[in-house]
């Protein structure tokens, strides 16, 4: 099983009388591209703010790279970079190269500046000739691409991007999509993408879930390639679901992908499923429904 880079458990956020997030739980593993979709005002921005440390949760916990964000914020944040919808630069009046070097130094990334690697990334994104230009004179799309390269050059393993394709033309969307997938696959980086276009998300993500009224729906698996061969995904509907989850934890079975309402999505082997089924029966947990999850076909761009 790949290393878990982000784990969000029962995250709740309230502002005034409005409940922005309701017990949101999910996780993100190495090499995985996870998408969280939803229309505006449904809680994406609140979730992004909580992850980036701009605001604080009322309940729940966030673990980044194995570090609890509340208890060890510095260690936790060293694993992740946050790319807001409107890119922000530390040195907007300077050349892209300056910004990249500055932010890498600020993050404290060790080793020499990966000049060749940056040129390669920039080349893939069509930005190679723009790195000498002032950051604030680049187009919005170019600025977003520069921010993406900045995060990669900083050496973080998890990139949390807000509306990664907003402001892009078709060619840029395609280039960025390919770039993210290549980074995830070949460099083992994880991406958590916030957006509102299901088509775009499906084209790039391994799993997507919809955030509606602060509630995170079940993850839809789009690609199998990240799953261990012996385990298959199941959607289990049971009552009480927390008791069913406790069974899983107690027996050390499977991996919970998502938890929502009375359902949970779990990766299980056939043997584990048998064991879980027995335990639930013994404890009187009412099993409503079990269905295997299906994946979409790989996109043509791969």
């Amino acid at each position: 099983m790949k290393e878990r880079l982000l784990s969000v458990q029962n995250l709740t956020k309230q502002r005034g009388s409005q409940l922005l997030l309701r017990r949101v739980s999910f996780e993100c593993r190495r090499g995985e591209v996870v998408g969280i979709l939803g229309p505006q005002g449904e809680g994406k921005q609140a979730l992004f703010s909580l992850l980036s440390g701009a605001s604080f949760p009322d309940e729940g916990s966030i673990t980044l790279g194995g570090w609890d964000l509340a208890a060890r914020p510095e260690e936790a944040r060293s694993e992740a970079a946050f790319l807001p919808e409107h890119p922000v630069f530390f040195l907007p009046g300077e050349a892209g190269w300056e910004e990249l070097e500055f932010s890498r130094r600020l993050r404290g990334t060790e080793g020499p500046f990966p000049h060749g690697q940056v040129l390669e990334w920039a080349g893939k994104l069509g930005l190679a000739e723009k790195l000498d230009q002032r950051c604030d004179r680049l187009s919005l799309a170019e600025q977003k691409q520069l921010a993406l390269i900045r995060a990669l050059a900083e050496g973080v393993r998890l990139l949390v991007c807000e509306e990664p394709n907003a402001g892009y033309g078709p060619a840029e969307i395609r280039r960025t999509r390919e770039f993210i997938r290549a980074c995830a696959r070949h460099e083992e980086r994880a991406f958590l993408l916030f957006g509102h276009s299901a088509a775009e998300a499906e084209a790039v993500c391994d799993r997507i879930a919809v955030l509606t009224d602060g509630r995170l729906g079940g993850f839809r698996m789009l690609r199998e390639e990240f799953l261990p061969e012996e385990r298959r995904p199941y959607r289990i509907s049971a009552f009480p679901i927390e008791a069913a989850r406790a069974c899983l934890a107690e027996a050390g079975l499977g991996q919970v992908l998502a938890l929502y309402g009375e359902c949970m999505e779990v990766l299980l082997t056939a043997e584990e499923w048998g064991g879980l089924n027995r335990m639930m029966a013994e404890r009187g947990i009412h099993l409503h429904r079990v269905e295997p999850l299906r994946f979409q076909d790989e996109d043509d761009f791969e």
Partner: protein
Amino acid sequence: MNRQQRLMKSEWLRLRRRGWGLFLCGVILLSGLFVLAGREFFWARSMERYTSPEALAADAKREMERLQAEQPEGYEIDLEKLRFLLEEGVPLSEPNWRLEAAERLASERKQLLSLLKNGLEDEQELTLRLASLGRDEKLIRAGDPVPYLQKKRAEMQQNPDLSEEDLALALWKLDYQLEYGIAEEENRWKYPVFSVLSGNIDRMRELERLADTGFLDSGYRREYRRLERELALDCYRLEQGRERIANPGSADYWDSEPFWSAAYQIQQEYRLPMLVLAALCGLLFGRDFSSGRMALLFGYPYRRGRIFSARLSLWGLLAVGVWLLHFFGSILAAGSFFGFGSLFSPALIWTESGVRELPGALPLLWEQLLDFPYYLLFGMLAWTLTWLLCNPWTAAGGTAVLVFLCKALESRIAYAELVSWTRVLLFGNLELSRVFQDNSTYFQNPPLLSIILLLLHGGVLLLISWDACVRREWG
């Protein structure tokens, strides 16, 4: 390099990119100092015009014309005195023995004239006094102070009207003048100093008499201590022959070099560094709040408290820079107008063990050190408002308005003499340099109270800004 150092270095690198802003702050700061120094210079020049030998001679001639035209009682005596002063070229702009002797001679002649008009009975005494005044005139005309002072000494000793104490004091003054060549032509700088010293001794005697009657309150005690200090400094100066001294805080213009007086004056008057410190908060953060850069920074591996302390430390370093610029700028500006000739003049400092000579810049440095916490406090106010309002320019403007409001309120309160409780409010009791000089708006301020108040003000502002940084939500 640890996280704190790394963050501070990054912040500094970012700030350095806005070098033009720092440069502009420096230029504004220095320009203000030069404007003030220029004002001091032109004020001194205009004073020189009014007190120049030509101007004073013209004044004396006008006075002579007036006396001749109006012919008041005893005008011939005054006319003769003025004629003598002009003919002999006696300097009228500063105290000297011949000027004072001529004044005294004229006064005694008028006194005698008045006695004659009122019918002086003793003819022998009249003859004696006339003869004595004639001898005085001859001695003054001769221009040698020693015989004149010796004659005065002898007269004092024969004066039965003087008490034992007064006689001893008068004799001491005359002996002192004779011993240290105070009135000698080659020591012209000494007489004005002696003149002040003599006045201070008389005032001290007056205060001692008040103390004997039990009317000496703490204000008078402080004045007595100040007079004691000044007496010790003046004696040291006269005895050691220190003509050029820095002592920038001195009240008497001939006591210190114009260069140091000007440097001290502009350093004391200049309040722009407070606003520059407030503006530096703006320069440090710039548009970080509105551009989203602050939120971006919070996503980096630094605790908010660390970001806060790194920025505060950086601002503190810049404040030290402003302070140094203010200090050296004051000297540079004063020297540009008055010349650097007395740059190495010593400053005389009174201590319990006696008078000591220190480099001239040290008293200025000390005054500025005392001013610095007050400047920092207003900078802290701007810093706190910046975090609270998330707009550094509004914060800087707000600080400026608060500074002037506080000053205006302070004046009103001091005017209304509602001083008992307001001293702990309104930043009114925090100017340590004024408190140490016992010259603050509020009477009888112990410096310790001001130091505690400074710490309290600073602590409260720091806590508020810390809270605004660490607990605020930016999403």
